[in-house]
Every structure is written in C-alpha cells, then in structure tokens.
C-alpha cells in the first residue's frame, strides 16, 4: 500500500470508527510489521500523522486517538479532537452537523456549540492560541 493510500485508510478509520486503526490492520495493509512501522514513520515525518513515543498513532489531525476532553458528537458517533480548533475541524472534515462537548477553560462550564445545518451555532467565546503558528510543529501535541 502506498503512503497516500495508507494515509487515506488511517483517516477513513478515524472517521468511521472514531479512532485509529489497530496495529493488526496496519500490518495487513502494509504487508508486514516492519513495513507498517516504516510507513507510519514516513507519514509522521511528513506531518501527515503524529506518532506517540511508542510508535502508535496519536493524531491524524484533526482527530485524536486519545481522550482530550474535547469531543465531537453526531448521532451515535463521536470523535476526540486534539484541541478547541479541532472540535470545529472534525465536523468540517466530515461535512456533518455535530455537537461539541468540551468545557470553557476559564469557567469550567460546558460549551454550547454545535454545527447545525452547516453553520456554527452559538458562536460566542474565543479560542486561545498560546504558540505562534511557525512553532506549531515544534511539538504538535503540546500545541
């Protein structure tokens, strides 16, 4: 499987299953464990996905493989987002309406945001970016 196909398969799995493919799936797609690890590393180095310290998929932006406290919910499906921006990015990427489940950092209150009929509802509030754009990829997990 070419890297572009693998990228798409990883993203499709996040979209359809709410999380990353299993290592067994990756091995099957890539034709072996070493091939899968090498392909994941190439995608990581190209900033296509993000691996954790153990080589597992941590992010396929805007999707997170771990619970971050930022969730996007649509019907019976849900996805973890990496950050506040990604809670908007997931409905955009999936072209869906969705509710955002997160809390405001300053108050701890639940956000009341949703994408309804393709529009952001209750758009009050703001997203705080701490890190300058040119440094986002210095540590994308921290960003």
């Amino acid at each position, binding site marked *: 499987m070419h890297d572009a196909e693998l990228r798409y398969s990883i993203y499709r799995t996040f979209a359809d299953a709410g999380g990353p493919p299993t290592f067994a799936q990756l091995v099957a797609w890539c034709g072996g464990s070493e091939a899968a690890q090498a392909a994941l590393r190439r995608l990581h180095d190209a*900033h296509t996905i993000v691996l954790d310290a153990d080589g597992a998929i941590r992010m396929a932006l805007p999707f997170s493989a771990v619970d971050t406290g930022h969730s996007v919910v649509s019907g019976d499906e849900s996805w973890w987002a990496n950050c506040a921006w990604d809670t908007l990015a997931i409905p*955009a990427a999936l072209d869906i309406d969705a509710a955002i489940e997160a809390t405001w950092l300053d108050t701890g209150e639940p956000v009341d945001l949703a994408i309804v009929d393709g529009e*952001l509802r209750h758009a009050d509030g703001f997203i705080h970016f701490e890190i300058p754009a*040119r440094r986002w990829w210095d540590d994308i997990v921290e960003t």
Partner: protein
Amino acid sequence: MWPLSMEWYGDRLDPDYSAKPVGELQAMLNRAGLVGDFWRLEP
C-alpha cells in the same frame, strides 16, 4: 474559526488529499483575519 476550519480541513478525508503549500495555508489564515507575526507560518 468555522469558515477557517472548513477551508483548512474540508478536504482532509479526500482520497487524493495532499498537504497544501504554506502560502495557501497562510492565505487562509489571512482571510480569517489572523494576521501579524504570531500567525506567520514561516520564519
């Protein structure tokens, strides 16, 4: 941020997706009103 999200991520699930050039990403930020040194993608 919603219009920016649609521009930035709207094609992420396309099978033929490829990373956008930095200039194109910078233009997206500019259109969203995110201008100035903090939002500059390149040194």
